[in-house]
């Protein structure tokens, strides 16, 4: 059994992080994983492979699009890019996530108990 704390936190979280990362700049799968790991200070140690089904889902929804290109290390890779619909979706998701987080934080806040 894998340690649950290192897994994807809740459904949609991985997608949200992918979209957010792609918003900064288009990149390919491997770079995406490294970027997410780095920015999360390795707290979220996602299984690298789980990125790909998430990417396929986003492709299908039209939130990202992919083009074959050459990576910095001179490999033929698929480079993912955020679409306008993806941007909107990200905004919606983030705001709903923030609301949820706020709720959770309030419940967890010390003092009232």
């Amino acid at each position, binding site marked *: 059994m894998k340690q649950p704390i290192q897994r994807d936190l809740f459904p949609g979280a991985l997608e949200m992080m992918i979209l957010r990362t792609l918003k900064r700049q288009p990149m390919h799968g491997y770079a995406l994983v490294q970027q997410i790991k780095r920015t999360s200070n390795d707290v979220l140690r996602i299984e*690298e492979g789980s990125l790909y089904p998430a990417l*396929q889902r986003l492709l299908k929804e039209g939130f990202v699009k992919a083009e074959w290109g050459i990576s910095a290390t001179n490999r033929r890779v698929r480079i993912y890019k955020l679409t306008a619909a993806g941007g909107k979706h990200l905004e919606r998701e983030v705001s709903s996530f923030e609301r949820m987080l706020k709720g959770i934080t309030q419940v967890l806040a010390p003092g009232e108990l």
Partner: protein
Amino acid sequence: MNWLRQLFSRRRLHRELSEEIQAHLDEKVEELVAGGMSREEARRSARREFGNVGLIEENCREVWGWPSVESVFLDIRYGWRALSHSPVFTAVALLTIAIGIGANAAVFSVVNSVLLRPLHYPKPEELVALHQVAPGAEGLTDFENGLLLSPSMYFTYAEHNQTFQSLGVWVTGTANVTGLAEPEQVRTVGVSDGVLQAFSVPPAAGRWLLQTDQVPRGPERVMLSYGYWQRCFGGSQTVVGQNIMLDSQPREIVGVMPEGFQFVGADFDVIVPLAFDRGKQILAGFGYHGIARLKLGTTIADANADIARMLPVWMDSWSNGPGTNPHIYETWKIRPMIRPLKQEVIGNVGELLWVVMGTIGAVLLIACANVTNLLLVRVETRQQELAVRAALGAGWARIVRGLLVESVMLGLMGGVLGIGLAYAGVRFLVAMGPSNLPRLSEVSLDARTLGFTLVLSVLSGLLFAVFPALKYAGPRTAAALRSAGRTMSASRERHRARNLLVVGQVAMALVLLVSAGLMIRTFEAMRNVDPGLADPQHLQLVRISIPGSLVAEPERVTRTQNEILDKLAAIRGVKSAGFVSEMPMEGFDSDWDEIFAEDKVYAENTIAPLRLYKYISPGLLQTAGTRLVAGREMTWSEIYGLQPL
């Protein structure tokens, strides 16, 4: 169409995915190697961090996959393999299903053609039969066919109605055709004006009989049926305008009705105009079937009300001769009971057909139960295989689906075989030609029957998968693995399903047996009815009519009949001969009239009870072997002497 494109670009999608994932792994390995790891270790580490490549690829594909189409394909392949591994089981199961479904498809095609499909006329829903009842009429017991129309009724209805586009009367009969190859008695339909207009079926050649052809003693014109046209004129286009000798009178052929045109379920050869003489009509003469086409938007209730309104008009406008009271028919309580023409055609066969359909349905259920039983036994022997699959991680749903796919495949294959059987059966039925089944010529396997069979096949496939699926796909892997070994005998719960099935089968078989027994009893009873003739194997029927146009005087007709009989009786091997207007159980329209009994006084303004009667010649009763209660037959001399007997 999006999914279609996806289905085609599937292969490319898979390739690209693999390539992408491989690139990912390579990049990772290189980075790790650059970080000082050995290549071997780096590769292992990269794999570990990536996760199960195969599973992830499958998850990716599933995102795009049309919901589990692929795995269903797999199931089908698997099911096919499983079935072809046990050919005896498959053959037995298929045969059982094919017979069950084939019988159902055949009966359904009859039900569909006879009961469900609309009649072959333009806008058949507007066509009605002018049916009437006269519950007040005394004597005549045969009110099943109601009260037919008289010519005067036809004139009244045709002239005063407000609810019909067209309306007419018709009657079947026979006529002699001479002058062609050999003399032939043909089936005729006499029609008034309005009948062909009501059917609205355009002729295949020439034109309809029109109002101008309905002139009494006018030029005689006829139409032919398609079959008669083909049979006697070879389908020649020049037939229109030719003359045909009908009852020794030349008649001009003005048209031919198209192939498949039936006269309310009756086959015919020639259509002749009735040409009623309006001036000679009286109230009585109730011998004609009425047919009409409703005006757009009128209902049968409207039409009934319309006819009811016209009945007094009819009694006011006509009479039965001087000194008679035309309103005497009020005692008959004549009431219109217009029926859709389809109902008139089908008659009461509907109920019978539904009963047959139900019976055959029970047969299919029994067949299904049989196949289920076979499947149960089979699944038992495969229990270990299923358990192994479950242990290897196949989900419960997946195993159930596998079983379902397998048995639906069985059902469908059985259905295909069944269609073949049904086709043969229907051909056989049409060839056999039971005379009391209306619309027989229309019976065929059509798209609706095929659809019905498809649904039936899938349903029965699902039906016989339910038991095995419920029983063996449950999460009892360990127990199954153990008990499928040789060390344990069949558990009690294994027997429960089979017992249930056997009970069901026996119950249904019993129902079938009882109803079959009842049917046989009915049939026996019918066979035992005394038909009023003896030794029917040695009776021969010949139909003869002497047209009035050939021999006009009544006495000469009688003499001719006498001579014909004498000549017939003189033929070697003929013992005796006689004439009768209608043999017992022939089902023609009988003759009937008022019969007054001498010792009874009839109140004024009533009609004496109507009784059926027959015309017979001397010698008939002896020939037919009819039992006389008392007395003797008439003789020819008594007939020539015009003695009232």
